[in-house]
């Protein structure tokens, strides 16, 4: 793999039975780059993202992150995942433990930190996402936006060098979206490598270094936000943007 890239994907294929959802995807992401993936539902962007930490197992192709080939079954995926943060559409906080325990669970269990260090770190990350005072409550009592910010803090606590976001604001009430996007924007500013599947075109325009347009299991267009949003080349891209921007 090429050292200058943080994430390098080569000719990725994924099928469910006869249904091929990824038809040969290649993508390179540089360190500190923020890549937003847009496209219609069912275009394969979420599946692609989930392949990056092997929540989905690709049929063929290669994914290199930190020098490990994620697609190779011999790779110790548990080790690699520690360096890849993932944020889900439905937050997936653990309801059987408090907010702070959600955050300290992985660092302590995986012996990255002592219990005390982990708690200190957790409070630090909760502060970053603006929820320090919620440390000891049960996640069930939080609003959607608060849950998602805790989920981000939980991912950050493992000190990942890549963060994957799978439609992080799609399940939120509109007034909550801003808080979550704000946190993500700050992360981007601090140099985190981020791959974001999103329907928030405004966020993509403002924050992304690159925008990738998915259509029918393939990358149709890949460029700067300006290129994609102002001068889309492919008719599929134009069609999609017409639909989502002119509502």
């Amino acid at each position, binding site marked *: 793999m090429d050292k200058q890239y943080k994430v390098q994907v080569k000719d990725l294929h994924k099928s469910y039975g006869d249904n091929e959802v990824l038809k040969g995807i290649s993508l390179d992401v540089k360190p500190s780059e923020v890549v937003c993936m847009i496209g219609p539902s069912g275009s394969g962007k979420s599946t692609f993202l989930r392949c990056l930490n092997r929540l989905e197992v690709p049929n063929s192709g290669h994914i290199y992150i930190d020098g490990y080939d994620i697609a190779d079954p011999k790779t110790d995926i*548990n080790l690699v995942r520690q360096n890849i943060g993932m944020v889900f559409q439905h937050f997936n906080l653990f309801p059987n433990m408090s907010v702070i325990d959600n955050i300290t669970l992985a660092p302590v269990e995986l012996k990255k930190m002592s219990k005390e260090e982990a708690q200190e770190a957790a409070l630090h990350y909760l502060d970053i996402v603006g929820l320090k005072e919620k440390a000891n409550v049960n996640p069930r009592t939080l609003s959607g936006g608060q849950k998602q910010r805790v989920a981000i803090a939980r991912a950050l606590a493992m000190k990942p060098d890549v963060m994957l976001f799978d439609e992080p604001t799609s399940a939120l009430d509109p007034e909550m979206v801003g808080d979550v996007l704000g946190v993500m924007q700050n992360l981007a500013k601090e140099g985190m490598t981020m791959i974001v599947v999103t329907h928030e075109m405004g966020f993509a325009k403002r924050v992304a270094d690159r925008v990738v347009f998915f259509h029918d299991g393939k990358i149709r267009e890949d460029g700067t936000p300006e290129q994609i949003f102002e001068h889309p080349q492919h008719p599929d891209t134009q069609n999609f943007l017409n639909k989502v921007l002119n509502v």
Partner: protein
Amino acid sequence: MKKSWWQRTIISCAVMLMATFAGLFVNKQVAHAEQTYTIGVVDTFAPFEIQNKQGTYTGKNPGIEPEMIRMIAKHEHFKYQYKIMSFNAILQAMQSGQIDAGMGGMSVTDERKATIDFSTSYYKDGIVMAVGKNSKITKMSQLKGKTVDVKSGAAGALYAESIKDKYGFKIKYFTTSNAMWNDVKSGNGAATFDDGPVLQYGIRNGMPLKIVTKQINATPIAIGFKKGQNKELQAKINDGIKWMQKTGRMQKLIDKYTKGSGTKTESSKNRTIFGLIRNNRKALLTGLWETIKLTIIGSLCALAFGLVLGVMGIAEGKFWKGLSSTIIYIFRGIPMMVLAFFIYIGLPNVIGQKIPLFTAGVLTLMLDEGAYVGAIVRGGFEAVDVGQWEAARSLGLPYSKALVKVIAPQGLKIMVPSLVNQLIITLKDTSILSAIGVMELTQTGTVIIARNMEGFKMWLIIAVMYMIIITLLTWLSNYVQKRMEA
């Protein structure tokens, strides 16, 4: 591939289980070496066998055979212990070697001689036909098209089978005399063929039946042994019978039970519900305690077995999943009574070792209820949102840590109501173990009723006892569930 911790856990659990059972067998062997004979004896079959209130054969009037064995053992210097079971179970247990000898007013027949060695006969016993007190039937020729009740495997059954076509009646089988007599009493069965002395004893103790024939086919009664085994015990008992006959002890013993009235059971003034409870208090409490013990130990074993099955059922590998499903499929598919018979009576034939009754009972509960618990556990784990797995795994937690820290606590909470329900079912299912003779509450009831003939009142008492325990259990579980919610 490296085995993960839970695979190792499952393997070590299996090894521990096997070691436990091996241990039980080894203990049994040691006991065997001391020359304590295990004698299978039927539930009360008066006057041959009369259990006391505790369901044992100690005391002054244990019946002809236990009193005879007591005298012979003293004279011949051997020790013995009784295993109380149904007559049919004795025949099978004798063949499987679970018991060294069996007795229960056993008739010597040619058919039985093929698989059983008999002692010298000490008594002759004939079949009689009995009908309800007010029945108009007096002759076998009046039985055409009617139902005749017999005890399966007993001489009366063999006789009824031999004349069934001649007289054109149907046969219904029972396991205890008492249930059979009550069936005739209520008019369901037109008549019964049973041992003369036994029926006489029952009628003397208040069973409203009447004997309408003379003794038919008087057959010798003897103690049975597994064919070709236990020659030593057979010789001792034969010697003892000879001694008793020579010294007149045998005749005195038989007269005591067939002529005198000193061996009647409870007097009529104790036959109210409260009188019955007072009289049988100790036996009922012992039976209840056995039921509770079986429920607790059986449920704990079933829970352990079920957890293993459940964890295997959601494992990543196809092998473990398939194994779990297969085990659940097998034990859910076998009726518990069949499983109990298989373990207690069938298995010893194959492994060549006796299985203690209580162990067989617990093992049955563990396998049968454990299969259901396994399905509950698997279902509970599967009911946890798949997003929880993904979140835990994406943080880098290995499968086992994700299961223990994230999935299991949530899954167990989902399972609690089903598990409590299964606990109550287990409590009720322990009654099935009465079939192999475990002296739990139901079997205690059977034994008491065989002695005092108070079927309705005793079963009412037993039913209420079960309901009280189950009500308490339900309250407890509601309390626990409320505490968990909070």
